[in-house]
Each structure stands twice: as structure tokens, then as C-alpha cells.
């Protein structure tokens, strides 16, 4: 699966990429929402966006809203430092929201595998 990872901390972004590339996915990184939109505009092969929530200028939620406004319906996963339950409940259309902790290493590959399965019937 072609995945765009958005995180203002490049190290955290690369960690997610390492995790998913290990599962055979192809990952690209963006360090902010603007860069993410540019990459999405330039590459229509991206099948999934995984974004950090808390970023300067354009937050993960802003990015999600902007994508939907542009009519891009690709699955969108939020990663956050806080408990994701509230945000998930308040944001219809999000594929998932996961907490950035040690469990992410287990949870994210499973989630992405499920999404990849759903994308290819």
C-alpha cells in the first residue's frame, strides 16, 4: 500500500515508516499539512494518510477536513499523544485514531493490513 505519513517530528514519522515498510508498504513522509497536500496533489497513487494530530499551522484534523473538502475520500488515520477516544467520536469519517505509545508498534500494522484488505476486495 502507498502511504503518506505526516508528522512534524521527522524522527517519529520515520519510525512509523520503518514499522510499515517492514510490512512491505511503501511510505512517503511529509513534515506538515501543506507539504502533505502538495504530495497528495502530485501523486494520485497514495492510498492512505497517517497523520499526527498536533502540528503547527495545519493540524491533523485540519488536514483531514481539507482532504474531504477537496473530495479526496482516501482512508485517514490520526496518531495522537492523547487518548484518541474523544476525537474519534467527534470526527465522523476518520478510519481510526491511535495513541502514540509503545502499543502503536503492534496496533498500527494490524490496522493498516485491515485497511489494505478493505481497499483490495
Amino acid at each position: 500500500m502507498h502511504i503518506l505519513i505526516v508528522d512534524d517530528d521527522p524522527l517519529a514519522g520515520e519510525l512509523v515508516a520503518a514499522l510499515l515498510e517492514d510490512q512491505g508498504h511503501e511510505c512517503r513522509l511529509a513534515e506538515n499539512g501543506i507539504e502533505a497536500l502538495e504530495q497528495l496533489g502530485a501523486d494520485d497513487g497514495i492510498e492512505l494518510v497517517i497523520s499526527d494530530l498536533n502540528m503547527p499551522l495545519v493540524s491533523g484534523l485540519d488536514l483531514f477536513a481539507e482532504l474531504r473538502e477537496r473530495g479526496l475520500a482516501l482512508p485517514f488515520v490520526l496518531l495522537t499523544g492523547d487518548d484518541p477516544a474523544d476525537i474519534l467520536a467527534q470526527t465522523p469519517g476518520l478510519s481510526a485514531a491511535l495513541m502514540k505509545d509503545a502499543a502503536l508498534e503492534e496496533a498500527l500494522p494490524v490496522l493498516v493490513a485491515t485497511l489494505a484488505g478493505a481497499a483490495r476486495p
Partner: protein
Amino acid sequence: MAPASSETFKARKARLRAAFLDQLPQRLREARVHLTRLPDHAALVALELAFHTIKGSSGSFGLTTITDLAREADDVLKAALAAGTPIAPGSLATLTAVFERFDALDLGAADRADPAERYGFESEPLPPGPVPGQMTEETPGPAHDHASRRCEQLVYLCDDDSDLAQELCAQLACFGYCVTALTTLEALRAAVIADPPAAVIMDVMFPEGEHAGPATIAALGVETGHAIPSMYISGRGDFQARLQAVQAGGSAYCTKPVKTTELVEFLDALTNRETPTPFHVLVVDDEPAVAQLHAMILEEAGMITAVATDPAQVLDLLKGFNADLVLMDIHMPACSGPELARVLRQMAGYLSLPIIYLSSETDRERQFEALEVGADGFLTKPVEPARLVTEVSLRAERMRTLHSLMVRDGLTGLFNHNTIMQLLDLGVANARRDHQPLCFAMIDVDRFKRVNDTYGHPAGDQVLMALSRGLRLRLRDSDVVGRYGGEEFAVVFPGVDVQQARDILDQLRMSFAAVLFYAGNATFNCTFSAGVAAFPLWSSADALTEAADLALYRAKRGGRDRVEIAVMPDASGDLARDRSGEDRDGH
């Protein structure tokens, strides 16, 4: 997952974790600067973001002590932000305590305590993915000399999968490379010793061992006494495989399925010892002496510079300069660096142009504020010449690579759909300004689906590559060629009237129809149809596209393998129905 590959993720994670720990003291120092600037609101926001990021990243790395400390600070700061009141003295005390406890962690020691997790690659970081490292900007257009030189170069491709090797060689031939396929390491060894190549394209894994490819190249390097210019193709994208390739001197690494255009770019870089186009840097400084000094340093390093001593000159200077980067002073009368950066960022063409500030500003907070507008770096005056050159070339190089990946189509190396449409817009604007003609053509391979269905997708790809290469080689530098989508191509011909465009396309059409394609034992020919629309008969990019598309449709309806010229809309309906295929000369 095989154990070997989970090892690799562990190694990569360990490296990232070590880098995170390395950077943490610096991040905390920056956070401390924000702390001293409280109760300023911007500082509060920045401080919250800093701790929030530390919390999230350390959480991902499983560094729970750090996560807990950062959470404590983040909670206090979030509450203060939510309350909208200046931060309470009690909260301030909590923050100070958090900083002290961070200091007490002695992060440097924690870092050193775990030498097994440090792999020491920091000095020579590996590219994060199969990103071309040293591509030079290639302008579409005639490149006969370049193409013929390619074939004089001896290139070997070694892969134990002989079908794949043959297919890659056939595809590379479409780009003018004569590549010899070898399927065993022994055959490669013999070939390299008998006739040293300009480059070797090498698989990583062979029956002899999972890293036998790089090992053979390394051994050959020792045996022959000079390094073998090599690049790797592999089904594996893991760290160990990449590391072996780098240690054997590999200059590029492509994961399978290999994109032929990516291979070609690397081969060009490996086999062409021409100097790449120098970086173009615009220097903006209100002090002429300083501007000249920096321009001189960069020019001595082989770059081309333009100097603006007034921000108002910048837009004019950027036009036609093809800047790779802007180096700007931060304090200028009338328009500050960040204001100028904002002006540039609000223009679509300069959204991704790298900007580096140069200033005597040492206040970190002010530096961050300036960076927030969308600049890429900050250098403090006086800057050492070597540092200036390094910072500028690193960023310019990266931008060129990214740009080239962004605007080009993966299979054909032509401009992609978005880019060609932007360039058409630009071409129309220029034609209007200069009162020059312009034509836009849409080209579509005839019965392409049948080629794919009958001969397979590799054969179809060959057709697309051959056509795109033909377009690149035969058109002028000023013509813009792109892949519009699928089997559709688009060309912008600036300064060309409709009759000239038709002649050019007809010549292309006839030579393309003569090309013989190979698929296994079968051979076949292909043709294309084209529709042309002319400015100013159609006065906007949208109108040109629609008219060219309609003309292309008529060409298809009229029996394919022909070029049709778009006519005015009120007549085109009738023409499409009644006069399809009629040759209309004299336009």
C-alpha cells in the same frame, strides 16, 4: 514476517531512538527559551507544541519516563491555553520542576549506556527510500548527442531471474542503453574482468547467498584494483540489504518492481561524467557589500547567482532565473525577510522554493518565528563560507530531486498531468503577453488496450516509453511534453502556428508507425492519433484542452493514425459527423 526482517525494523528503530535521544537536549533548550518568554501567548503555544511533540515521539519509541514527564508539562500548558488566562504561578513551578527532572535524567548518559543499540550510521545516513540521489534536471527536447553517447557505454545487468533481466534490458534499450544481461555471478565476473563496464546493475540476492550480489561486486573491486560503478535492484527494501549494497559501493538502490525511468536516471548519473547544471541562487540583502560577498562565495563554489538589494526586485529577478534557492536577509527596510517569504509562498510557482534566512539575529525565538512563515533554514551572520556553501547546496540538491519526482511521470519520465496543465497555463500567458502563436496537442495511442490484451503490459509499456522518447528527442527544447494519462500524451508548442504543429506531428506520426515492437516472438506496429488546438482561436488553457480533445476524438472517428485540427465550436459538431477524416489543408 521472517525473523531477519523484524531484526531490521528493530535496528532502524534503535537508530531513530538514538537520534531522538541525541536531539532531546536541544529540544529542551529550545523549550526553555519559550519558558523565559511567558506569559507571551505565542511562547505558550510554542511550548505546548514542543512538549506535546516530545510526548508523542517518546511514546512511540517506548521511552515511558520521558513520555510521563512531557505529559505532565503538556497537561499544565493545555489547561493554561484552554483557560485563556496567563499561566498560574503554581503551573510555572510545575514546569520548572519538569525541566529539572529532565536534567536529572542525564540524557547523555542514558544514551551512551546502550551502545548495542547505536549503529553509528549517523555520519553517513542512508536514504530513507529509493529516492534518486543525484539526478540532474533534464529538459524535454532534442537530446541526440546524449542518446547516442549512451549506447557507447558498456552496461551489465546481473539477475538470476532471466525473464526479468531480459525485460529490463529491452526496456532500457527504449532509452538508448545497450545492456548485456547476465544471469550468474560467474558470468558477470568473467565479463567484468574481460571488459570493464561503465556500470553494473546488480541484484542483491542470488542462490549463492542472500547478499551475494554486493559481495561479488566488492570482491571484484578488490581483484581489479578499482571500484566497479554499480547500482542495485532488489525485491528487498530492508536495512541489511541496503547496507550491504552501500558498503559494496552501490550508488543507488531500486526496489522491485523497478521503475525503468528511475533506473535510467541513475544510469545517466553513473555513466555521464558531465557536470550537472549549476545551482541557481538568488541572494537578497539590502546591504550591497554583504549581498556581493555571499554571491561571490557561492559563485566560487560553482553556483550561479543573482543579487537583489531591494525586495521589490525579487519577483522580476526570479522570472526566467530558474532559481533553486533564495538566500535572504531577515531585516530589510520596507519588507522583512519573513514578509518576502510570505509573498513568495502565496505564489503557486514558489510554494516549494527553498528559502534560507541569513541574519545577525541570535534570539532563537525570533528565529523560530521567522521560520514559521515557511522558510527552510537559518544561518547566523557572519557565516563561514564553507558552511554557507554546504547549507545551500544540500537544500538545493534535495529540492531538485523532490521536484523532479513530483513533476514527472514514473514510467515515461515526462511531465505528469498536473505539471503539463500548469505549463500550458504559463505558455498561454506568455503567448498572450508576447503576441505569439501557440498550439496544444493531445496524442493518443491507437487501440492501446488491444496491445496490452494481446501482447501483455510490458509490451504496452514499451510502446509508451518509445513514444515518449520519440517526443522528447524530436521536439524542440521549448516544446513541453507530458503524459496526460494512460496512453494519452500532451504537447505544448510555444511560438508554433497550427500548420507547423500539424507538420511536426505528422512527421512524428509516420516515424512512430514505422517502429517495430517485440513481444516474445511476435512483432507488431502501433499508431497514434492527435488533435491540435491553436491559441488565440482558443484563448485559455481549458478551452485549448477541450478543443484539442474534441479534435482528437474526430481523428479517432475518422479512422485513427491521423492528425486533426480543432475548428470553431459552432461548426465542429457538423464536421465531426459529416466531414470526419477529411484532410483540411491551408489552415
